[in-house]
């Protein structure tokens, strides 16, 4: 079942970005005439402009399954591209498959099966030998995880572990590695880096530990930093510091950032592009302005309504129900059992189409491309559908967003 459904999402990701693979014959997955209201445009409109610039990371139909007593598809055919210097956020509830999807990129999934394609600078990583992956881990793709204190071996000093990370990907003398580690600690904003070098992880506060973990991830001078819930569990003032740090690092190191969080605030502050993940699939993607200003997918809208807003007093609306069982996901749109606008006989049938909107290039997109693309995978915006033309679209068509547009400082 999983082999069939993700086709829609996937084909569009590729056709629009001009990827050399599979860009013919599948364009029809989104009906070209699927535009009625002003917000939509033809899928073939733009996107051919960046074909010359090869993406840093190109993910294509990435699927991760775990074989326990049942087969669990934690990630189900997601596709995206990331270019040098880009910042991309993945948001979604716990269990949406965000973490698994990034761990799958560099072969960090132990007991699961990863299929699809992950290309790093044109090199295929799915099924690549450990040796290849190890060369990319750290020096190509650095990772920062939640709960930074646990990122360190409790019986070794923080400094020695950063030195170790330097050694893992760069050929430096012990002394040079030590100097580099101290520089890194300084770069991430740890006061008295030489003095804190010999401290043990438990002597660091939570915020400092996260900074040190970031330093460790930077030790290999990665081109892409993947941060998996880097601010979760830190108190708010510390969070703000970490967010600032990421922003500085991305600017100064000209690094790409792939940020995973359930915290839309953090993601919107750091990422120019955002993808919303639900039950292993990407349901909506777009620039932060598009997503926060005019969210299209009912799940995105529900997600935004459930986030507290400091400026505006409004009732929070929790999303009813709970995320689906990934061993037995609902047919059709995986959100339909919880969706306020779901149509029986439609949303629970075939997988919904991915529809593209034209509220693009409004976010100062450098180089255009993916950043302009605002897509949602939902029947609400489809003109034609497998169920024929006579279905009642009143409920799904009534979806509209009345939420506030969060302020985003550049």
């Amino acid at each position: 079942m999983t082999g069939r459904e993700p086709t829609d999402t996937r084909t569009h990701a590729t056709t629009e970005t001009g990827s050399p693979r599979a860009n013919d014959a599948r364009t029809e997955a989104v009906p070209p005439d699927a535009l009625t209201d002003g917000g939509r445009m033809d899928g073939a409109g733009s996107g051919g402009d960046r074909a010359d610039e090869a993406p840093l990371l190109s993910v294509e139909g990435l699927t991760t399954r775990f074989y326990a007593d049942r087969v669990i598809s934690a990630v189900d055919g997601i596709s995206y591209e990331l270019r040098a210097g880009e910042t991309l956020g993945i948001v979604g509830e716990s269990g949406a498959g965000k973490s698994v999807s990034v761990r799958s990129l560099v072969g960090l999934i132990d007991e699961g099966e990863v299929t699809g394609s992950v290309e790093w600078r044109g090199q295929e990583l799915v099924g690549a030998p450990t040796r290849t992956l190890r060369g990319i881990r750290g020096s190509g793709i650095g990772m920062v995880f939640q709960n930074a204190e646990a990122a360190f071996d409790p019986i070794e000093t923080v400094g020695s572990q950063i030195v170790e990370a330097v050694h893992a990907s760069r050929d430096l003398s012990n002394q040079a590695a030590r100097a580099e580690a101290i520089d890194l600690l300084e770069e991430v904003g740890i006061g008295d880096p030489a003095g804190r070098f010999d401290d043990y992880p438990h002597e660091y506060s939570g915020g400092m530990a996260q900074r040190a973990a970031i330093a460790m991830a930077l030790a290999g001078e990665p081109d892409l930093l993947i941060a998996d819930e880097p601010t979760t569990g830190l108190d708010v003032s510390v969070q703000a510091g970490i967010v600032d740090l990421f922003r500085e690092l991305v600017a100064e190191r000209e690094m790409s950032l792939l940020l995973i969080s359930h915290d839309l605030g953090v993601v919107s502050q750091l990422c120019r592009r955002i993808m919303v993940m639900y039950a292993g699939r990407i349901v909506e993607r777009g620039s932060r302005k598009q997503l926060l200003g005019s969210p299209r997918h009912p799940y995105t809208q529900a997600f935004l309504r459930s986030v507290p807003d400091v400026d505006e007093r409004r009732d929070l609306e929790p999303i009813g129900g709970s995320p689906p069982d990934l061993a037995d996901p609902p047919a059709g749109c995986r959100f339909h059992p919880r969706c306020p606008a779901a149509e029986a006989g439609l949303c629970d049938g075939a997988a919904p189409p991915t529809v593209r909107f034209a509220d693009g290039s409004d976010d100062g997109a450098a180089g255009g491309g993916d950043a302009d693309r605002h897509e949602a995978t939902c029947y609400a915006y489809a003109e034609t559908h497998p169920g024929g033309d006579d279905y009642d679209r009143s409920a799904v068509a009534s979806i509209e967003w009345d939420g506030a547009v969060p302020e985003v400082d550049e």
Partner: protein
Amino acid sequence: MAGRTDTGGESGGEGDRETASRADRPAVRRARRFARRFRRNRLATVGLLILVVFLVVAVFPGQIAPQPYDATDVPDRLEGPSLENPMGTDRYGRDVFSRVVFGARVAFQVAVLTPLVAMVVGVPIGLLAGYYGGLLDDALMRVMDSIFAFPTILLGLTLVAVFGQSLTNIVLALGVVFIPQFARITRGSALSVAEENHVKVARSLGASDARILALHVFPFCLSAILVQATITAALAIILESSLSFLGVGVPPPRPSWGGMLRVGKGFVSSGEWWYSVFPGLAIVFSVLGFNLLGDGLRSVLDPRTDPDR
């Protein structure tokens, strides 16, 4: 600072201690912390003292024993303890005290070398099995289980019988007997640390398996291995004594406590108790020393029993 730690202040001193020791190298701080905690553990200290005495005796038997272990004095045979022969004499008139002293050397060699042999083989097996898991784990651990399935004495006895009766063979045989225990205990620790976040992080940053095993997994297992080594040392002494008692131990005339016990037991009913009691006590105390040390290390090295926190 020294004064504070010596008084063992349970509360309050934490902050001062941290700042005061900040300038020290991490290894020095760790050693100091270990020493502090060790001193506070009375039983471990007692165990260590016993072992220090044991070690001195084992290293310098010639200086301590009043007579050579094989000096016979037939007219004075089977004499009870006296000023001249504090532990009496045996059936050839040899000084039991001197023989117990020289027996310490054999016992100590067995106690130190046996765990070493077992460790050299068992620890790598445990590391690989625990870290990689899966089929390798199953295969290695089934082999270990099959060794484990033999009664230790029987296995030791068989190996010595096959390879011949010498100190080297006894150490090797006992080493083999204890391999599964080291493999198992190392595997357990490796298994748990392999699931730790910091291992995953190290892997995510490009560290090789060899590097992770050497820098994260092995150090984590070390305390459990150390504790196991002391307990194995005690068991090795008992096993060597048992083998000697059964007549397949260190060949005479080198004195072994188990061998002395074997001969001495025949004289207990006729009243010559010292012949067997003193070697027996030597076994008891040396084993006790290792066990106390092992227990002490277990609690000192286990962060969950940290009295400082």
